[in-house]
């Protein structure tokens, strides 16, 4: 096709938006609301997933060491633990550090600690963080086998709950997003079909004077693409502004919700802005263009 032909089809697609103002406005509203719904749900699920990750990251395995180990032996044990598969980090805690930590955690218990005295009853320990909590058991068994490790303490029940929670969350999040996407595609598709339906006479005339299906469909595709770009950009802007406002509100409180939950906070808006905006505009444009283009199908059988 000649450049002048392509130029005509693009101009025709864009001018269709102007000529069909009412349906264009309806399509814009439906697309924007759909994208906002998907966008907000996606960001909520993304942050929830990250928060579960934060809670997971705080869980440590404590490896108590046997008494009377030399510094060299203690260091060797630390290296052995580091070399175990799935171990993320290893931090040494002396018996004094461990005892001070317990004292700090139990307030108003001076009498109890006076009775125990200043000497720590706890052994030296290593605090170990695990990469993948769902695969913690083999790591625990390997650490247990290291000579000089007296006992391994791990919150396996809690880790089990977290692992199940993350698994269930992944399935639910995927299902919710898939359902939303399907609903949005159906709604957008119906709006596009209604818009095309109003122009079935025009399509029939075009067919009768010798236009090919592609020649008729391309302006509809361009129209859908343009509507998708505009709606995608608009919904991305609204989502970004709202997300930024929520993030500022929650992170500038004196006692933040995140501190109470023991999580780091929302994903910073700057980190997700570019991919999110690109995905919203691109996704919106693509869905709208394909759905609008396909809606012409039944009228092309002339």
């Amino acid at each position: 096709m000649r450049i002048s032909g392509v130029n005509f089809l693009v101009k025709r697609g864009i001018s269709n938006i102007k000529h069909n103002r009412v349906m264009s406005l309806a399509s814009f509203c439906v697309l924007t609301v759909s994208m906002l719904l998907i966008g907000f749900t996606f960001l909520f699920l993304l942050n929830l997933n990250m928060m579960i990750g934060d809670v997971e990251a705080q869980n440590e395995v404590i490896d108590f060491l046997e008494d009377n180990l030399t510094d060299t032996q203690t260091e060797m044990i630390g290296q052995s633990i580091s070399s175990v598969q799935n171990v993320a980090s290893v931090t040494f805690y002396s018996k004094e550090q461990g005892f001070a930590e317990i004292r700090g955690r139990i307030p108003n218990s001076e009498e109890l600690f006076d009775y125990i005295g200043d000497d720590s009853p706890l052994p030296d320990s290593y605090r170990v963080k695990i990469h993948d909590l769902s695969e913690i058991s083999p790591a625990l068994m390997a650490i247990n086998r290291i000579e000089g490790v007296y006992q391994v303490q791990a919150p396996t029940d809690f880790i089990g709950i977290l692992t199940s929670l993350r698994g269930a969350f992944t399935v639910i999040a995927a299902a919710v997003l898939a359902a939303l996407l399907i609903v949005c595609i159906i709604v957008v598709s119906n709006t596009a079909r209604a818009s095309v339906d109003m122009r079935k006479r025009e399509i029939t005339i075009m067919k009768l004077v010798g236009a090919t299906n592609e020649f008729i469909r391309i302006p509809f595709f361009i129209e859908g693409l343009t509507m998708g770009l505009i709606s995608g950009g608009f919904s991305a802007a609204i989502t970004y502004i709202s997300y930024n406002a929520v993030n500022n509100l929650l992170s500038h409180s004196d006692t933040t919700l995140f501190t109470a939950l023991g999580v780091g906070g929302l994903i910073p808006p700057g980190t997700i802005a570019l991919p999110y905006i690109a995905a919203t505009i691109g996704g919106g444009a693509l869905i709208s263009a394909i759905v609008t283009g396909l809606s012409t199908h039944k009228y092309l059988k002339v």
Partner: protein
Amino acid sequence: MVLLKDVTVTFQNGVTALDDVSLTVSDGEFAFIVGESGAGKSTLIRLLINEIPPTSGRVYVNGFELSKLKKSRAHKLRRSIGYVFQDFKLIDSMTVYENVAFVLRCTDATTRTIRNRVPDAISLVGLKDKVKCLPRELSGGEQQRVAFARAIVANPKLIIADEPTGNLDPKTSLEIIELLKGLNEKCNTTVIMVTHEHEFVRAFGGRTVTLRDGKVVFDGFLNPSL
């Protein structure tokens, strides 16, 4: 050339709209197809533009055998035909110029071709001053003239006019038929004009095919009374 050989069209509801019709319209001929409502005129047109297939028989239009023509190739046939319809069938969102140019754009014509041919076609129908108007801003007669300009702009071998005067006053109707006659005489374009207005047929005369209940009951020449 248009050739129908033993063509029957029976719809799903059992109604036979065309019954064993054989008809030839040679290149350069002007033929009136006349008949009352329900005689089969519209079915004949729908057949010729490949909108419906024949139930039996063969249809040839401009070298295309329609029973063998795939839907995806129908545009090639349609580009060789110019149409003038009773309801004009103009695209409401396009100006006069764009409506006429659209036919050429479909064929991927060059910008130069479009710029040369479209004003000529519009001038021929006397609407040079209305190129930027939308169809709704024109009278019925003017809209039919735009449809006529659209029909001729690509120099088709055949023009099919389906009740082109049905919505027009007698004076404008005469002008439209004269335009068709003129095109037929000057450019040797084959014209098939379907009408139920016998007075125009009698006035202009020429080849006349009369349909009744789906059958050809008369095929001959009438002398003009004008």
